[in-house]
């Protein structure tokens, strides 16, 4: 079973080799002097003194998008098996799919009306 996936495994390994090579190349070819100062190692800032912090807060909109993504990605995942066998199942699958999508779109309309899709 697994041996028919050999090319995929080889690709994964090659990707790992290239990634490691890029990660290590500055250590090998780059200058070896290690003069570090506070301003050199601080994260990028433009003009102001660098505000170093680890815990960032960010907008609630990102959470909303993530939740909606889960909902609609599950819709897509459910549609794939139906899509493969649609020709065999015929009208039955078509009606079922339409009802499923219609129900989901009631929710989509609600979310839209409540303004979750408008970026703030």
């Amino acid at each position, binding site marked *: 079973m697994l041996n028919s996936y050999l090319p995929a495994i080889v690709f994964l390994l090659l990707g790992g080799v290239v*990634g490691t090579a890029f990660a290590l190349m500055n250590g090998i070819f780059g200058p070896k002097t290690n003069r570090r100062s506070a301003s050199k190692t601080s994260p990028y800032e433009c003009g102001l003194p660098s*505000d170093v912090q680890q815990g960032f807060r960010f907008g609630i909109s990102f959470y909303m998008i993530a939740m909606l993504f889960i909902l609609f990605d599950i819709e897509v995942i459910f549609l794939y098996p139906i899509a493969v066998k649609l020709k065999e199942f015929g009208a039955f699958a078509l009606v079922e799919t339409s009802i499923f999508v219609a129900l989901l779109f009631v929710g989509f309309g609600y979310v839209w009306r409540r303004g979750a899709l408008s970026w703030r």
Partner: protein
Amino acid sequence: MTPILATVNYSEPWWIQIIKALVIFAVGLQLIPLVLLAERKMLGRFQGRYGPNRVGPFGVMQPLADIIKLATKESFRPRTSVGFIFMAAPAISIITAVATLAIVPFGNTVDIFGTKVGLYGVDPSIGILYAFAFGGIAFYGLMLGGWASGSKYSFLGAMRSAAQLISYEISQGLALVGVVMLAGSLSLTEIVDAQATQGWFIVPQIVGFVVFLVAGFAETNRAPFDLPEADAELVGGYITEYGGGGFTSFFFAEYLNVIVVSAITVTVYLGGWLLPFGWHTPGLAMPFIVIGKTCLLIFLFIWVRATLPRLRYDQLMSLGWKILLPIATINTLATAVMVVT
């Protein structure tokens, strides 16, 4: 025993599998500097200038000069970065991009020295879902990279790219459902075979093609959707703190993703290795046809980058959710009606 992995339609002896994986990887690797150079030359021409023309004849050695420059930079990370993740994130991007290259079919099974060889890395029966799975993991590369940098510009860029990727992934997935309905299979080679009898899927699925392509631009963070790296507001986005190796990795992954998305679009909508007008494709010419079509699509990517201005972030989100998602859903239902009746 129920198999855990999806069945593979055709597989060769192990040594052929390793050789063909190496060959495809080498070809993919060679395409990256070519695309890089082509993009810079063409962007130059689009903007009425020459583009790189100093390094080697017509500037063809420019990617080599770039890589040497990037390799000889000092190894550096900011003191706020989370060391291990900061180093690993670019590698995640590369691994997923390279792994997705495995399912791009450059041709059907052909006879090479009396052995049947499939001109693709692997052809699992789940085909497209394999690409989506690795696309989903690729997102961790950007996200972890931006978070581990410990810079607010990186972090904001990472959050933006995360929201952008997941928003457009839905439309991309839905657009492909129509193709899967027509072909009745998820396997990429079987989708191309279906196009040999039904005609190229761009004709019945033109709406799906446009949605898939627009979502593809967004998924690869290309202009006009290159918000994560919008230099006017976010400096470099999630790559702000990366230089040298990490920067190389992210760019390598980005260009490889452009190639892979173009190749998958070619396979799914533009008939893969099939020639138009029902001309017969000779076996070993298949990879050249696929690569030729892929290059045309990559040219489209570059053309769009030169033409369209960058969207604002709220425009980007409403395009994804309020326009592409309903269109893709209606397209899916219309295709379902078309297939059943």
